[in-house]
């Protein structure tokens, strides 16, 4: 039986070439793409069995590229390989019809397994991704792709948390009570599977709700 044909989408050529060497004993690497637009083009041209996609692609990100590909080629199997362990991305991935999601901190063996599962018509979520979810119900939900969404209000609160506002300040800004803010905070942490101001801030940045200043050589807005 011929080996399954895989397309790889990642903007880091060294990563792509490394993945090629990991996959080639078992799969045929039909092609590669360094950005989301090229990935959609190559998917149409090469008609692969499966695509390994990095979420953070230039021009068009991996999630959007996958959406477009799935529209015209619903049968192609998508496996996301990413640095983002944030559960919001995992939710998006399965909502658009992905078969697999694993982190780059997984091993090559995990990727091979993910592709086998995907091509066999099953789903795969990497062990590193679900490990961080303490709540067993939530973990089950994520593993089956049924992931709770953040409400509009929760996104608002998250943005303000990441901007460094206290619960009282947020309450005043949104005309709600501080207790309600704390309630939202708990719900947000539960849905995202993260807690604490550091993790919430990073999530807000990942969602594009807030931008860190590029302060490499200075203090940015705070001064020394």
């Amino acid at each position, binding site marked *: 039986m011929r080996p399954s044909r895989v397309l790889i989408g990642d903007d880091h*050529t060294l990563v792509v070439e490394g993945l090629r060497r990991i996959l080639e004993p078992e799969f045929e690497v039909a092609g590669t793409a360094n950005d989301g637009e090229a990935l959609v083009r190559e998917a149409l041209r090469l008609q692969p069995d499966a695509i390994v996609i990095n979420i953070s692609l230039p021009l068009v990100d991996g999630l959007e590229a996958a959406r477009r590909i799935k529209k015209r080629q619903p049968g192609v199997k998508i496996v996301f390989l990413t640095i983002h362990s944030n559960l919001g991305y995992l939710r998006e991935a399965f909502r658009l019809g992905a078969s697999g999601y694993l982190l780059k901190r997984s091993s090559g063996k995990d990727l091979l397994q993910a592709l086998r599962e995907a091509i066999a018509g099953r789903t795969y979520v990497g062990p590193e991704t679900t490990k961080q979810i303490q709540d067993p119900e939530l973990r089950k939900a994520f593993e089956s792709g049924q992931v709770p969404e953040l409400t509009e209000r929760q996104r608002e609160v998250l943005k303000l948390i990441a901007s460094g506002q206290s619960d009282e300040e947020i309450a005043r800004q949104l005309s709600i009570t501080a207790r309600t803010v704390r309630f939202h905070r708990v719900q947000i942490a539960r849905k995202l599977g993260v807690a604490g101001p*550091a993790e919430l801030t990073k999530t807000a940045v990942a969602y594009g709700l807030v931008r860190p200043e590029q302060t490499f050589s200075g203090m940015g807005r705070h001064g020394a």
Partner: protein
Amino acid sequence: MKRPRLLLADEHQMVREGLQRILEPEFEVVGEAGDGRSLLLAAQRLRPDVALLEITMPLLNGIDAARQLRKLCPHTKLIFLTAHAGREYAIEAFRAGAAGFVLKRSKPEELLGAVRAAFQGKHYLSPDAGLSLAEVLREARHAGPEKPPLTPRQREVLQLVAEGRSNKEVATILNISLKGVEFHKSALARKLGTNRISEWTLYAIGQGLVFRSRGG
């Protein structure tokens, strides 16, 4: 001739495994590390000829690890292999003692060339880094436009806090007392002008100490 001995440091195992396959035909990969602290331990234990390291790594970032390695393992040539393409990163890398700076979007041949160059005592800089090798070496010779605002220890504490670790965890990882952690955090609060962890995290992200979402 004996093959040069390499140590690979990158948070992501998938990346390390791929790199190993790219490098193995020509070099001997003697070890790997998934974070900056393991890198320090592995480098001292294995004494590799060359170490490849990423800038953003858990526990201790590549730039700060490089500064320590320069003293601990002066014979190990350091090559940054990174996703961070800005010229400031390149300058900081060479300032910290790097022999080479290669972007992850480069082709395998370029990485192999950089390792060969480092092994021969030469410098290498990816053409896409946004400045020439001559320029970066010139910039790197100066301490920088202003004195570094945070001490190395403060940067270590900042990175761990931005990674979401408790004071207790920070104390354990850095092998200092809880009071020591609190002392450094007060200094950080003073220098950063805020005691809000969310703002510390934004600053840490801007500095490349941590990635935007958990796990890198």
